[in-house]
């Protein structure tokens, strides 16, 4: 004997599962999930949507099973995220996170990694005038881990920027097909979607791109504690895990009239790459920097950069 009566708790749970699962699906399809987490989460979010869907279907079968004690408080676990996702809120922008600049090192600075190996702060690296010493570290100790980019072996057409045999070897390994790279004109045009790739490439192989002209779009980041008056960072927000760890990251620019630039305004910077020193906690780090020749206002770029 099975009695039947409408069960509001099951119905409420059904609504929550469907709404949450549907929302997950919609977030991934529309790409809006990138405002909260990194692209790596995509399969996991699909998985969540599927489990929620199965749960909702399983609930349907019990929709008319009577239950005397009806509970609803537990549904808040799903209701709260659903409401917060649906209610209007704006993605985080630079202004929300000022004062957290970490340089490009979080991407893949080799210098920091070498420092970590020995658990001492990195020494002030060799004189830029002596690139061979520095390159040997780059090329030998760290083979192609960092930039597993396609290699078309067109190295013959490439003019190595530094006439050094060891760099030439690494030249063959890297950077043949990087988007926006024009070796002949020694020019790099960094498209917005390649920001992350290029920052890690520049930090990883700063010697190779010395003297290149670079075009990069970002917001103006200034910090009186870390940066000089004639410096600013052409930055984008970088997310390595989720919205909780957004930090501005980008290339440091030297510009005499930096003070005139409005903080957090979007600009396209054109300038020449060189290796400068970035001093943090009394330790100097090598840093690819831009000597600015031209600044044009730019449209705001939506979305965050991922360090992969």
């Amino acid at each position, binding site marked *: 004997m099975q009695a039947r009566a409408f069960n509001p708790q099951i119905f409420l749970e059904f609504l929550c599962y469907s709404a949450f699962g549907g929302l997950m699906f919609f977030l991934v399809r529309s790409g809006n999930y990138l405002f*909260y987490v990194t692209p790596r989460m995509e399969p996991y979010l699909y998985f969540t949507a599927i489990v929620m869907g199965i749960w909702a279907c399983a609930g349907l079968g019990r929709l008319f099973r009577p239950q005397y*004690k009806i509970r609803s408080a537990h549904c808040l676990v799903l209701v709260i995220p659903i409401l917060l996702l649906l209610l209007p809120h704006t993605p985080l922008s630079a202004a929300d996170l000022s004062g957290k600049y970490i340089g490009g090192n979080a991407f893949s600075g080799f210098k*920091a990694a070498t420092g970590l190996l020995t*658990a001492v702060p990195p020494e002030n690296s060799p004189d830029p005038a002596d690139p061979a010493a520095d390159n040997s570290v780059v090329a030998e100790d760290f083979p192609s881990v960092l930039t597993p980019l396609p290699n078309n072996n067109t190295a013959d057409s490439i003019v190595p920027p530094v006439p050094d045999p060891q760099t030439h070897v690494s030249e063959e390994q890297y950077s043949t097909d990087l988007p926006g790279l024009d070796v002949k004109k020694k020019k790099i045009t960094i498209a917005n979607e390649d920001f992350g790739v290029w920052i890690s490439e520049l930090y990883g192989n700063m010697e190779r791109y010395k003297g290149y002209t670079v075009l990069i779009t970002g917001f103006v980041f200034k910090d009186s504690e870390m940066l000089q008056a004639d410096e600013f960072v052409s930055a984008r927000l970088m997310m390595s895990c989720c919205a909780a*760890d957004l930090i501005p990251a980008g290339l440091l620019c030297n510009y005499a009239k930096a003070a005139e630039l409005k903080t957090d305004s979007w600009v396209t910077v054109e300038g020449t790459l060189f290796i400068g020193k970035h001093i943090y906690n009394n330790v100097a780090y090598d840093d690819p920097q831009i000597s600015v020749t031209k600044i044009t206002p730019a449209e705001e770029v939506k979305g965050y950069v991922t360090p992969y």
Partner: protein
Amino acid sequence: MAIPIYVVTGFLDAGKTTFLNHLLNRRDWRDVRMMVMQFETGEEDFQSRYGNCPCISFSKKMLEQQPAQIVEKIRSLLQSRELDELWIEWNGVVPFSQLQALLLHASLRNLCKIQKVIHIADGGKIENLLGRTGGALPEQISTCDFALVRNVPSAKLFKRIRHLLKGINPGVKVIEMKSYNDLYKQLFVKKGRPVDIAFQTVLLIVALHFVLKPLLEIAQIPVNTIINVFLGIMLQAVPFLLIGVLLSSVIQVFVPQNAIERRFPKSIRLGMVAAILAGFCLPVCDCASIPIFRSLVRKGIPLPVAVTFMTATPVINPVVILSTYYAFNGDMTIVISRVCLGIAAAVSIGLILGSWAGKGRVLSGGTLDQLMCSCGCYEDAESITTFRGKVGLFIRHSQGEFFSVGKYLVIGIFISSVVQTLGTGLFTTAQSGSGLAISMVIMMAMAFVLSLCSSSDAIVARSFANQFPMGGIMGFLVFGPMMDIKNVMMLSSGFTKGFIAKLVLTGFIVCFALVFLFYSRGGM
């Protein structure tokens, strides 16, 4: 009009009939037309003093074999007599849902309606009965509107019983049976409808969002940032929590109770090896390992082994190893250090806790066994034998567990997002120019607050590599996945406060000591 039904539940000899004798023979109730229906014959008989309350009884045998006849009997009674109230004394070993099925039968549904369900417990026995007498008793407790406890000599015992009952039926009112006055109030208090309450809460949140948010933003509190951070961690954690509750429910439902106990290595040493191997094979983060930990402890795995499993899994699993490898540019030293220190810390924490906390109460449910999964499904996992039935139970179990752990996850993430939005600057400011020990404490505190998912915390750790020495980074990498705000909140869904405090303290000290020793000697 439907006749209101009041149901009294409680185990055999809990004192149900005594209670009815007291309650229904009140002088001022003598004009109320009542009837008592007993589904159990205990030692005491119901006797109506004023003759306004006849009594009929059905045996358990009849309940099992001829439910249709009972329905028919009730129907004719309800139709032939004009009753104001019907009181039912339900059988102590039959689930409440059976009574519900009887009363919702097509021929009865419009005649009567359950008004209140009162559970009666004998303070001297209830603790021993729960968990040893099948699923009916917790099921009855979980559906009552309020519980009466009689025979409680000390306030301490009452507190313990109240905790126990609330663990099974959250939010239930527990009353000591001394005076009946409190009881009358409870009997006739109007119940809010939970579904209405749910919709009111939704409206309240929406209203708060539009009213409070602008106000707080005027007060310089970045609500928008908090919401984004909250959603970020939430979307990161929910999939892994789902993996966790699904695996944990598989253990609870499909693995027979004694299989793990029988097959699992008897010696602690072999158990530890098994725990670490299992941890290595499970590609889950800390959100997933806690529900699994809970079901392992329930299934009788020795505590040191279970603790080792829980603390090791989020540090040493393949996803974490890979993400650490990429975050540190393929630096194997860091990957190996993290895994080795993680294993060493997990084993030490397990051993220390095993001897320190093993004797006290660990599970907050106390003596309850696998029936009590606080998930609201009280069917005995052993009694359902068909595969279909098991799958159904598995789904309900995982849903229940998702909500019970998820509740704490939401609270934990909320605290974490508020704290880190309002004050991470503190951590990096405190760092400037301090030694290894202080850096480590700062980094470990930061890991605790940030509550990052262990599958991707390596990249965040990496971003601090310039400000902090390697020891600090390693403290972050080893301690963070084991313990953080979100984990502590999630643990409180199943464990006692004392146990959680011991776990956090031991975890912190062990991780600190190991990493400090390792790096103050110059690392690898």
